[in-house]
């Protein structure tokens, strides 16, 4: 598959980023870094995240009104054939603009190209849904699989990779639930599939796909854990078999899923530390939190507020103890700051959103504000 972006520039970008991190550790000199930037140059248009968001929003508006604009000439009374022609014309327009802008403006995941790509994907899918409107889900999935695969291989796009992963998972799941045995084996199939995808993307060495491989790593680890999580399996089982009991019934192999729920987060955390794999480590922490929630969901004896308070207190104690313990590096772990703090402003706003909303408890005199303190509960 021919790649849309300049492979050399992407590799140079990676070299520059690595070299900058070495400069902050005083491993190379500032002169060396500027030589590196000159020798390994890249000329992508890479605006900051906020400009990207703006570009993306307005490009999506432009794309949808381009479709509206084209429909003035092509709608032809709204027959199926006319809509198919319209979406093919739009597809052509989006794809041409996408390629043209990447070539001339050196776009590189800059917002506009993302918006054009998604519009093109949407336009490519519309004819299939219009022309074949009574296919089964898995047949649509196969078609979407090819479109997403193309988008990922050529553009290495974030949401295309996300879509590809979702489509593969949906494909396998919808085929399996057709059979009674398949329903029972679904959790194991999800885990096996996730493990296979994880091992496969771990082998990708091409820098062009580096970030997307990381994304697929995250997704496959998440589905691997959720496939074995007791809560997901038990509630999912009740949902798939349409059991409308107030309490979903116990599942087969329950001890095995208890075991998975406990052991997978621990394995992630330990593996993350051992292999210095940050993705594994962070997902280990998050899945551990979800495992605690799973336990509390079935065997909890605390009210939600008590649960949140105890969890918060434990997290504070654990974090403080670890920060003190790892003050000097031990067992290959350290508390030393790796990179500069990036989200100080954002953190402040989060505090305001979560706790700051009007301290009083239901005082009618204060109009506006609502009591937002408990809001963090669901997220936990």
């Amino acid at each position, binding site marked *: 598959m021919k790649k849309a972006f300049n492979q050399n520039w992407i590799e140079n970008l990676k*070299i520059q980023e690595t070299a900058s991190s070495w400069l902050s550790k005083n491993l190379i000199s500032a002169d060396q870094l500027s030589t590196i930037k000159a020798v390994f140059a890249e000329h992508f248009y890479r605006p900051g995240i906020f400009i990207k968001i703006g570009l993306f929003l307005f490009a999506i508006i432009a794309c949808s009104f381009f479709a509206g604009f084209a429909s003035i000439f092509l709608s032809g009374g709204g027959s199926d054939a006319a809509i198919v022609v319209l979406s093919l014309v739009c597809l052509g327009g989006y794809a041409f603009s996408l390629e043209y802008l990447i070539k001339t403006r050196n776009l590189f995941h800059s917002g506009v190209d993302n918006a054009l790509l998604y519009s093109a994907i949407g336009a490519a899918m519309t004819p299939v849904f219009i022309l074949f409107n009574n296919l089964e889900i898995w047949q649509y999935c196969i078609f979407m699989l090819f479109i997403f695969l193309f988008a990922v291989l050529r553009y290495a796009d974030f949401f295309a990779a996300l879509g590809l992963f979702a489509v593969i998972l949906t494909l396998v799941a919808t085929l399996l639930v057709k059979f009674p045995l398949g329903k029972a084996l679904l959790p194991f199939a999800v885990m096996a599939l996730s493990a296979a995808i994880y091992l496969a993307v771990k082998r990708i060495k091409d820098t062009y796909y580096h970030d997307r491989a990381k994304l697929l790593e995250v997704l496959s680890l998440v589905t691997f854990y959720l496939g074995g999580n007791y809560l997901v399996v038990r509630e999912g089982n009740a949902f798939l078999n349409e059991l409308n009991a107030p309490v979903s019934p116990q599942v087969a192999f329950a001890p095995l899923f208890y075991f998975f729920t406990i052991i997978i987060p621990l394995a992630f955390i330990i593996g993350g530390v051992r292999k210095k794999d940050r993705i594994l480590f962070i997902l280990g922490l998050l899945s551990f939190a979800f495992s605690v929630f799973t336990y509390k969901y079935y065997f909890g004896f605390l009210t939600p507020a008590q649960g949140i308070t105890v969890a918060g207190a434990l997290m504070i104690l654990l974090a*403080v103890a670890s920060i003190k313990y790892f003050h000097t590096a031990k067992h290959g772990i350290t508390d030393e700051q790796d990179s500069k703090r990036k989200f100080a402003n954002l953190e402040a706003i989060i505090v305001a959103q979560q706790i700051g909303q009007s301290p009083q408890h239901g005082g009618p005199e204060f109009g506006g504000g609502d009591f937002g303190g408990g809001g963090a509960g669901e997220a936990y």
Partner: protein
Amino acid sequence: MNTRSILRALADSGIISSPQSAVIEKFETEKPFSIHSELRSVLYLGIILFGGGVGVIIYENIDTIGHQAIIGAIACVIIVCFYHTYKNRLPYTSSEVENPNKFSEYSLLLGCTTFLALEGYLQFQYQTFGTRYGLTVLIPTIIFFFCAYRFDHRGVLSLAVTGLASWLGLTIAPMSILAGNDFTDIRIIVLAILLGVMLVALGWTSDRYRVKRHFSFTYLFMGGNLACLAALTGLFTHDYKIIYFLIAGGLCYFFILRSREEQSLIFLLMGVIYGYVIITYALFTTFGDTAAALLATYYFLFSSIGVIIFLLNVKKFLGIKK
């Protein structure tokens, strides 16, 4: 590409020597795994959960035996936190203070969130401040403003700003502005615009006169969103549209200029999005419904392309170097 292939590429082009390359490779393979930011996130989240949970627990346990004990425990937490912050304080300066103590920033935040819970409860149970409800909100607000400046803490500053807003009967938390405020009441709109503009002015002043310059983001972002959303709602639903149009337009213009001086593009995004909405609305109401229906497709297609061209060349237009 991995460390080794990057090092080989750099060594091949003669930028780094082979001993230096060996040093870097040794460093990369032997450096310990840093869990600094993960631990800070766990700590931060723990404080937010604890502060939120405690606020509810107090009310859940009114009339039980453990009640006094819970109040006592919370009071102890507050005292310990503030004492820890006070003990590790640094002298006040108007620039950003980097406290070498690892926990002082977090103990202050924990102290403030639990104080909020306790103080609200004391008023609820014992009417500590009688019927002067405003005082219940104003006291923590003043304390938080003082702490934010004295101990240099952005999180506490944003708590203070939310407190100030709720003293006036407004909700300022960015995701809750539209849901939390009753903008059908014209008084609320005017109040929100006034507070928002005042905060924006405060943010601008703190940047201009270099008093805690790093606070200006919090003021500008929170105040700007409040004022812009209030002015937009006023523009859509109330009379005297021209006044709201001028206020919102002026703020957008200010934000776009701000982004140039501060090299902070989030304000550019705010200015462009709010600006686009008000200009679009103004054009469509001026030309009436029929013209709007006819021209909408062309207008949105070409105006959004125009905005894209502006954003693609924004650094040139605004003279931003970064």
